[in-house]
């Protein structure tokens, strides 16, 4: 079915097409439309699922985990503070090995309330054990959500999966997209067959005390799940293409890579903007290409080592920052390439808190980065002025204020 819909509504429709059975959720801008649509689909009898109107995101994730452990297919959606509030349960979901899929609409974290896009929310959950994929377009959001269940429910994976889509740029813009019917999805996604579950017919204890003698192995098996996921992700993309004829890449997606000497690397919708920048650079004779990281976890280490070899220079775009260090993707890229590709890599931090990023800016900064004209880590669109800094003088001003108040008293 071809529809003209927002990214958020497309996510809801894709969940419906995937025969999701339980949806616990809590509203937060800019995710709200997803769960409103789910509630509406259920109310109209178009979606055969239980909606759990939980009282917080911590509870949303708790119910997501426990519902999945009964053997039902479970889905949720959140964003920013909601995702942060789930943090404990994100670890729980991964540790108890439930194959749930959750959409996260990437939004900045306060304070300084900001509902606009950046990747700080999901990047901050990097080490929870979740599979993380970042989509760059509406159709890809639909297709990735469906593939998500196929990937996470694979018995060699069984790790929760987060589909990240950029706030407003994708969540609230309308685009026409193909939403497959449930029957079509059935040809691709088999019913969920749990490897373990909560069932009175076979009483099993889940998540009890595990001593140091065994605990490490449970965590190593999660690492193995991520390792296995790499092949399952590739397979899921191939099979999806066979059934639906669409492909958005697997762990990575390349654009004009073959003869490229200079690379831009990015995640999410900024890669779509970067494509335009690459086109412009090509027009002016620069052999530029784009390497989009779709899966941040598991990280496409092998792909990067192969695809970055013999390039002249790379610029990594981050829509996030690991404070006290640098952009998170930048760190990961360097770690992956260390000892494998001798290529200069520089970092552009842009688009924080929804700041608009144009292809002109990307093209301009990329050339500077490749020519070594900017530092290793550059806040590309920064216009920090004196008014953004808390100066010594301002602090002294407060001191004087307190002193004079004391005198008055």
């Amino acid at each position, binding site marked *: 079915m071809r529809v003209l819909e927002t990214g958020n509504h497309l996510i809801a429709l894709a969940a419906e097409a995937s025969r999701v059975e339980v949806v*616990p959720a809590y509203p937060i801008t800019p995710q709200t439309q997803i769960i409103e649509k789910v509630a509406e689909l259920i109310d109209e009898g178009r979606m055969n699922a239980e909606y759990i109107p939980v009282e917080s995101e911590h509870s949303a994730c708790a119910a997501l985990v426990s519902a999945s*452990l009964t053997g*039902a297919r479970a889905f949720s959606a959140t964003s920013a503070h909601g995702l942060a509030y789930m943090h*404990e349960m994100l670890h729980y979901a991964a540790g108890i090995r439930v194959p749930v899929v959750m959409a996260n609409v990437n939004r900045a974290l306060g304070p300084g309330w900001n509902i606009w896009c950046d990747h700080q929310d999901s990047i901050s959950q990097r080490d929870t054990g979740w599979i993380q994929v970042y989509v760059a377009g509406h159709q890809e959001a639909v297709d990735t959500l469906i593939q998500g269940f196929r990937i996470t429910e694979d018995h060699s994976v069984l790790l929760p999966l987060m589909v990240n889509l950029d706030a407003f740029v994708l969540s609230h813009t309308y685009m026409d997209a193909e939403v497959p019917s449930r029957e079509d999805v059935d040809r691709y996604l088999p019913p969920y067959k749990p490897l373990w579950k909560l069932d009175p017919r076979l009483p099993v204890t889940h998540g009890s005390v595990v*001593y140091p003698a065994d605990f490490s192995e449970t965590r190593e098996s999660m690492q193995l799940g991520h390792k296995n996921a790499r092949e399952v992700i590739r397979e899921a993309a191939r099979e999806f293409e066979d059934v639906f004829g669409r492909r958005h890449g697997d762990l990575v997606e390349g654009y004009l890579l073959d003869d490229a000497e200079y690379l831009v690397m990015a995640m999410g919708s900024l890669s779509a903007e970067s494509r335009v920048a690459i086109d412009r650079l090509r027009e002016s004779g620069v052999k530029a290409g784009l390497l989009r990281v779709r899966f941040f976890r598991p990280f496409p280490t092998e792909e990067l080592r192969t695809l970055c070899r013999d390039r002249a220079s790379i610029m990594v775009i981050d829509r996030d920052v690991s404070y006290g260090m640098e952009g998170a993707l930048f760190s990961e890229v360097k770690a992956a390439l260390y000892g494998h590709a001798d290529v200069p890599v520089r970092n552009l931090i842009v688009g924080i808190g929804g700041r608009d990023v144009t292809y002109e800016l990307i093209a301009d900064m990329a050339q500077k980065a490749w020519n070594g004209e900017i530092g290793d880590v550059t806040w590309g669109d920064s216009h920090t002025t004196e008014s953004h800094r808390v100066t010594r003088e301002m602090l002294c001003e407060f001191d004087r204020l307190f002193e004079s108040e004391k005198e008055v008293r």
Partner: protein
Amino acid sequence: MVSFKDLPEEELFLAGSTACQGCPSSLALRIAFKALGSNTILIVVASCTSVLQGSYPLSAINLPLMNVAFATGGASASGVAAGVKALVKRGELAEEPTVLVWAGDGGTYDIGIQSLSGAAERETDFIYVCYNNEMYSNTGTQRSGATPLGAWTTTTPGGKVQHRKDIAQIMIAHRIPYVATASLAYPLDFYQKMQKAKGIRGTKYIEMLAPCPPGWKFPSAQMIEVSRLAVQSGMWLLYENEDGETRFTGGTKRIIEGKVKKKPVKDYLEMQGRFRQVLASPEGQEAEDLLEEQVSDSIRRLHGWVPEYI
């Protein structure tokens, strides 16, 4: 009336648990399982019960069991209830099993109250049992919102200066169909309450006073005796509330009806090391009076007035 002979012989709480001697939670689990039977899914909230069930790869609990995070008792029940509903719809399960949450007072009064309240408001079909040992036992005896005034804990080294809150009444205020309190000194009363809860749709809340020998500092052989004195002194009132109507049961009923005389709170306090310090202090009499007053106040709130013979 049920008698002990009517209790099923099947033991779903197996031998080999790692609980302390005289552990109230273990005994309560054993009785609860007999009342609910094997078609039950158990959710254990972080507490002593997460530990006493035994550790991986062994388990003393012969039910499908999910150990959940501290704040998630109610939400986890909502998830399981929705999950099994979906499985019944799909034809995977013939009927929805009973969903039982087992949580301590910390997981109920404090960190878990939001999630429990949410589940009750959502009318999730499950039984929530709080075994209330009036402190955080698992982490080594810290105060909770259930710790009574005067009691020593590691975070109230001079004795707690506030009263406990009345969470059963908070649950009644949710207008759920069934709320009850229970005591291990009245096991058949508890058994019947669990059975009744099983037969009612919606959220059921049952709270068991759980005198914990190491935490309350009394010999483990006296666990039932302390439980009984809690009721006899009025420090723990036994009742059930069905659709808003409160009915006293067990020892409390006999006190309210004037059939037996309520014992002084002091008798109960003196059995436990956790009150020794406050009783010996200059504020000892005041603490005792405040607790007696609170007993009267609780009876007044439940019954409407305090009969003069109490």
